[in-house]
């Protein structure tokens, strides 16, 4: 069975490492914060100026002066720090943030990513995405394997305007975990009950299948 958004977030949470600073994009990535493995020390960065971001505030305790990059009211954990946008992107550009998780419209087998613009449609802007993908040492893309029309988002070449070139290392979709390697997308894991054939059919880019592909373990 293909994963839902929470399943994708849970699987990505398994990629976290103790001591990592992590920037989570809007949407599925934000959910990852809820599934940090017990006892693991991870700090979440919000590019509008927070390190050590906590959960949403209790009803009635929200503060208009404390929001995340998705403009949602948030809280701070003990040890958090606040800073300006230049400092925030100094952290990102300077590769002090170890992991960026973000959504995408398309990913290509050379690691290119497109997630900000559809020609002919209203363009809202790239926000911090271009800075994040150009700098992050680890980028995990969290997305559905196919778009609403059932077309693959895992491509030989991106058709949309790019957000960054050759930067994506790993993709977690509702169907699979893929690694971007020189030869294409290497299939690492299957969603529970999803076959290699189903993944192959949903993947337009070169899919590399070596040996037995294990199922994801999601609790």
């Amino acid at each position: 069975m293909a994963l839902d958004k929470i399943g994708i977030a849970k699987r990505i949470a398994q990629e976290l490492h103790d001591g990592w600073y992590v920037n989570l994009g809007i949407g599925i990535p934000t959910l990852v914060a809820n599934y940090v493995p017990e006892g693991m020390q991870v700090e979440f960065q919000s590019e509008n100026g927070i390190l050590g971001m906590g959960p949403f505030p209790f009803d009635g305790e929200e503060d208009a002066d404390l929001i995340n990059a998705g403009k949602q009211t948030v809280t701070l954990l003990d040890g958090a720090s606040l800073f300006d946008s230049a400092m925030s992107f100094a952290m990102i550009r300077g590769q002090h943030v170890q992991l960026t998780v973000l959504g995408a419209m398309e990913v290509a087998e050379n690691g290119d990513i497109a997630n900000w613009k559809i020609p002919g449609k209203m363009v809202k802007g790239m926000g911090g995405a271009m800075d994040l993908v150009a700098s992050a040492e680890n980028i995990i893309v969290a997305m559905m394997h196919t778009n609403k029309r059932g077309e693959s988002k895992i491509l030989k070449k991106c058709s949309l305007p790019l957000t960054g070139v050759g930067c994506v290392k790993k993709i977690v979709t509702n169907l699979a975990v893929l690694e971007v390697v020189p030869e294409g997308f290497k299939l690492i894991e299957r969603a529970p009950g999803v076959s290699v054939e189903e993944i192959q059919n949903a993947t337009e880019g070169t899919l590399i299948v070596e040996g037995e592909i294990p199922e994801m373990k999601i609790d």
Partner: protein
Amino acid sequence: MINKVINNVQEALEGVEDGMTFMLGGFGLCGIPENSIAELVRRKVKNLTCISNNAGVDDFGLGLLLHQRQIKKMISSYVGENDEFERQMLSGELEVELIPQGTLAERCRAAGAGIPAFFTPAGYGTEVAEGKETREFDGKMYVLEKAFKPDFAFVKAWKGDTAGNLIFKGTARNFNPMMAMAGKITVAEVEELVPAGELDPNQIHVPGIFVQRIFEGKDYEKRIEQRTVRPKN
């Protein structure tokens, strides 16, 4: 100390003219110069170029200027959540330049810091880099980006003193400090204005040297765009 206090927002905006380039602090509706925006609306200055991370919502923030068609060009990183903006942009009435958020922040800081240009990896290989110089450093590609040159910067701080020193609260800091640095004339509105000497010199976020005019604002609405809460139990 050099006294930067201006009596009110009307005086603070003296000299703003049609066709000028402004920087306006804030991220979403958080930390925006509400009083200065209201006065810009009242003055009806037009053909403005506005450098601001976002463009407000339909009935608040920069949306108020858009509504009166005072803005000719927006320079932002993200402009969602604004129907009038969308209409003007799609109809070609409004020119829009989209810039990666970190590049936007650094181009503001560079303007204030006397750095005419710097290299950043953001946008390399994308349409953002088109027409710009690119260069390799240590095997990685970078784009040359230039400092902005705003006529006025409008920023909003939590506390300020008569010498122009500013302190921010929470994420209302965002773009305000580097825009304060960049303005040829920087107008700071603060929630609380105190005498010089009341703020801890160790804890100033923006030294008064960057602020030409300061006043205590009023009637802050501080609208929340996405109220997300947990139930109390």
